[in-house]
């Protein structure tokens, strides 16, 4: 369960968000303007802040900048109707951790929130080895094995699997993969990511009893041990 603060001025969008987050089992507070939001964020400790970019009194980017100046490093997801490449860069530069253009699918938001919450707090917390079930990925040796079998991976396949395993148990959307593995910030019309996933699946799941890489319909993918 996460404590989440939603700073959003549109009442309908805000109540939709708060309701959706509560249904997922999180605790969500709501602030309707920028000043109020900044105060709440500074006074209580939240796990995640969801900040709309255009707000009355104090805009989203200023909130993030102010927070970071005060030494507050709560992960911030910026929501914005301005979804263009340069807006995104501005948002991240201001100190945001992720940027989601409006309109968004709730599953996309959910996946990103969970990814943010799981983010290592500092660099020395980064693990060098990931493992899910009997699948292990050694980031230092750039090797991957499942049980006793060594699995050869192309560099991009390695990064794809690395990202999935870093977020093991969480849903990762196609857009997140395209952004983080390929570093593109647009959505292709075709299922180009699906093809890469199915190739990866062919390498790590084919011939093994329990599949680890799952497709979540309407949302994305997740890698998890069926036993959990």
């Amino acid at each position, binding site marked *: 369960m996460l404590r989440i603060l939603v700073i959003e001025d549109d009442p309908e969008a805000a109540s939709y968000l708060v309701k959706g987050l509560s249904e997922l089992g999180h605790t969500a507070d709501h602030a309707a303007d920028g000043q109020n939001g900044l105060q709440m964020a500074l006074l209580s400790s939240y796990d995640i802040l969801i900040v709309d970019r255009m707000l009355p009194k104090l805009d989203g980017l200023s909130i993030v900048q102010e927070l970071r100046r005060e030494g507050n490093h709560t992960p911030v997801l910026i929501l914005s109707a301005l979804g263009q490449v340069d807006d995104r*860069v*501005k948002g991240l530069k201001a100190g945001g951790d992720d940027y989601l253009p409006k309109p968004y699918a709730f599953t996309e938001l959910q996946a990103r929130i969970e990814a943010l919450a799981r983010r290592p707090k500092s660099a020395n917390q980064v693990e060098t080895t990931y493992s899910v079930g009997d699948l292990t990925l050694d980031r230092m040796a750039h090797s991957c094995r499942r049980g006793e079998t060594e699995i050869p991976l192309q560099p991009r396949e390695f990064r794809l699997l690395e990202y999935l395993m870093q977020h093991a148990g969480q849903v990762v959307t196609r857009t997140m993969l395209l952004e983080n593995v390929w570093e593109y*910030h647009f959505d292709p019309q*075709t299922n180009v990511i699906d093809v890469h996933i199915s190739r990866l699946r062919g390498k790590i799941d084919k011939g093994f009893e329990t599949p680890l890489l799952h497709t979540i319909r309407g949302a994305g993918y997740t890698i998890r041990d069926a036993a959990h």
Partner: protein
Amino acid sequence: MTRLTRFVRTTAFKLSLLYVAVFTVMSGVLLVYVSESTEDLMSEQVVQSVDAELKGLSDVYVRGGIRDLVETIDDRTRHPDASLYLLMDFSGNALVGNISRLPTIVLEEADGGLRRVRYTRLGEGTQEIERQAMVRTFELRGGFRLLVGRDLGDQLRFSNLLANALRLWLVVVVVMAVITWLFVSRRVMKRIDDISASSRMIMNGDLTERLSLAGTNDEFDRLAVNLNDMLDRIEVLMQSMKDVTDNIAHDLKTPLTRLQTRIETALREASSEEGYRGALESTLNETDHLLRIFNALLRIARVESMAPGSVMEPTDLKRLVAEIAELYDPLVEDEGGRLETHIPEGLTAVCNRDLISQVLVNLIENALKYGRPDNGEIVIRLSAKEKDGRVDLTVADNGPGIPDKDLDRVMDRFVRLEESRSEPGTGLGLSLVKAVARLHGGDLRFKNEDVGLSARIDLAPVAPENSRSGHGEGQSGQAGQPAGN
């Protein structure tokens, strides 16, 4: 009054005032210097000749006594243009000479000092003219006093001539300077007034108005050219804004109306929960489609209004294309086709990685949808080459191509050829490609090749100088910078 005040306040007027003042002071200094040094030079000549004569005459006195001296002086006074002489005995009677009426002090103080005196000359009839001279008086042995001098008439005339010439010159120069600067400042004011008037006209709404050029290619013309370029850019931007709003109004109305009809139908006819669910699901699909169109339109508008310099940086095209090929290779392979890349090593261009990547993606996806040959596997070829200082980036397929009459039309917004209506899509993919090509200073061109269709865009290659001007921000090549966002 207002016109005069305005004139007095102009930079041109202040500058000309300063210019005239500086010039006058400098001319004055020059005048004083020239006349003083001429005078010095001439006095020196006078002193030298007086000294020489004195020496000669005292030699005559030493050798031949007073009689020879009187004779010599008498002789010399008869020459035209003679110097001035006066010889007196101890009691002050003039023995010989050509001077009368001299201030007595000159004669009493016979110390050899140089004096400037007024005198009257003898031997010019009854007319006595007062003149100026430079004289020395010496006492000789025996109580005689000898005065030798030189008339200053020529010298004074020359000095006056010079002074008058210099004064006249000064006056002429100042007057000319004033006239020139008045003329220049009037011209300058007129040009500035013209520019102000035109800008006011443009501000009042006539965006097609342009500043006129004098054709002299001076700084005003250059300013006007730059302002006109700026106006052109503003006009294009405003037009594209208008186009986008028109498009949004026109093309979002259709799906919105469809959505409304579906909801109304569902409210009227559906009676079961499944009926409502079905209607909601179909409206959700419709809104997804709407949002895709909306985002695509916004992205195109954004690209069209971007300042090129702010989003581009030198990029390795081989790597950019290789990354896209790597992303799409498996997909094309699954569709039973092949993706080939032909990019020379080290080919770079000034571009935005994200936008050019999206262009390639749109063209590849287009080729996959429409470029499949009737029999056999589809081959998509990504190639680039440098040609005439531009970089040509081409995506070609081996499919049926499109009718020649439609080659240009396919790039327009929402145009979808009849054969493609059944495929999913917004009809905006190629419009975006075109906008990105334009942003990069190039264009998008389709061509039916011997086999298949090729889409070519051209980019500026990395220039040796200004290539570093694009501010990069990581991989997406993006930042706000002077060119303005």
